[in-house]
């Protein structure tokens, strides 16, 4: 049975959440989205229905957050609460219905990223943790970890320094390199603490995407065969439909297929 971190939201009902909740965490630019894509494809080919989701995508506030950030006008408490609202919306309207319908829910970041950002911005650690106590405890959290020295070349040679990834609201310096470095260092420090506190599985993100994928795959395979396999809960079609989800059936054997997916993604 699923649990939360201490606060259960009204009407949530934890007893029938039979799916698996898998979280990929990590700072910016560690390759989370590549892994998300590969994992989704592999899991679907294995016959698992997958919901992939991430931060600030909720129907309620996702757009508003983007718009407000463009103006750079949100205070730090306000921004944290805006994120928490978005998170609650996704939890209630996407994640929980999908888990109830027996889906594997893959989420690109989770409540921990929001806690880490708030802490870097100097908010009370107890306060931000308490607010996020309504979050469901995931079945697994994989933390793709990278040091700041390895992260910088990736940022430089891919998309450059993003304002928000450089903590533009925090540092008055005009030097993007300097603020990116400071901000990411502070974030990694917080993530390392959270990794211990919440027992993340730490994965060295300097490795090749293919190797990281193999590690994730092995761990997730174990999770899915352990008590209460996901398929056991034949998802009532109407539950899935109500949540706006589609089921992809056809279970196929594990193994080479995963390799092929990894290779294809690496080429792309």
């Amino acid at each position: 049975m699923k649990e939360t971190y201490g606060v259960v939201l009204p009407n949530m009902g934890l007893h029938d959440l039979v799916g698996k909740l898998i979280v990929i965490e990590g700072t910016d630019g560690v390759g989370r989205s590549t892994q998300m894509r590969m994992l989704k494809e592999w899991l679907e080919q294995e016959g698992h229905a997958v919901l992939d989701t991430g931060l600030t995508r909720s129907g309620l506030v996702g757009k508003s957050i983007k718009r407000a950030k463009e103006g750079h006008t949100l205070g730090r408490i306000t921004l944290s609460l805006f994120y928490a609202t978005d998170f609650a919306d996704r939890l209630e309207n996407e994640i929980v219905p999908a888990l109830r319908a027996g889906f594997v829910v893959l989420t690109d970041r989770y409540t921990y990223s929001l806690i880490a950002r708030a802490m870097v911005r100097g908010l009370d650690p107890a306060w931000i943790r308490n607010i996020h106590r309504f979050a469901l405890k995931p079945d697994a959290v994989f933390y793709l970890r990278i040091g700041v020295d390895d992260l910088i070349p990736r940022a430089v040679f891919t998309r450059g320094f993003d304002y928000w990834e450089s903590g533009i609201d925090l540092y008055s310096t005009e030097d993007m390199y300097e603020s990116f470095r400071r901000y990411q260092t502070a974030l990694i420090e917080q993530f390392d603490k959270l990794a211990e506190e919440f027992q993340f599985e730490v994965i060295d993100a300097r490795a090749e995407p293919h190797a990281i994928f193999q590690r994730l795959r092995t761990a997730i395979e174990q999770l899915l065969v352990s008590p209460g396999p996901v398929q056991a809960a034949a998802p009532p079609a109407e539950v899935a439909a109500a949540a706006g989800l589609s089921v992809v059936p056809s279970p196929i054997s594990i193994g080479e297929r995963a390799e092929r997916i990894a290779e294809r993604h690496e080429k792309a």
Partner: protein
Amino acid sequence: MKRYGEHRIPGRLFVVEGIDGSGKSTQLTLLHQWLKAEGFGVVFSEWNSSPLVKDTTKRGKKKQLLTPATFSLIHATDFADRTERNIIPLLKAGAVVLCDRYIYTAFARDVARGMDPEWTRELYGFAVKPTIAFYYRVPLEVAMKRISDARAGFKFYEAGMDLGLSNDPDESFRLFQGRILEQYEKMIPEFGLTVIDATLPIESQQQQMRQLVLSKLTQARQLRVAP
């Protein structure tokens, strides 16, 4: 981040609380007029008015997208924006700030919707503690009568229709406001709310209010606007 009760700022913060139809907004408007006439630098801040957050709240309400949790969180976001950009800077500058509804409204509504009471209090842990929080206490029937005289029909969330208490908006409103009254009663000792009997004549309520406010302003000459 300073928590409730930890802010040491020169301004004064007065807030009014009570169910719809308690007459609290009328009382606050009268106080506002008087303070202005007395030469105080006074600013009015309304519940649910942050320009950044308001549209989201409005859309959520209109399309009935809000659950008890997101209803609670979006209002806290709005309040945080007003606190960070408005209330705290004004109080630092020495203003008298008046709020029509404050965190106690959120506590009453959120808990009436089934949210965890401790969690909602923590959610607003960043709020400035008011100099005085007035609670306009009124029996439900009196409030209902005043409202039905003044306007037609209740809004969906206002009547707590999201809780499915009753399909009849009037009945749902009554049940929901009854729950809210219960919460207010609990908060009187918890937060030291100043109770005003809202069935008294408007003038005598206002007189009480002005006396209490004045007692908190006498040592605060800097709050006056230069002539």
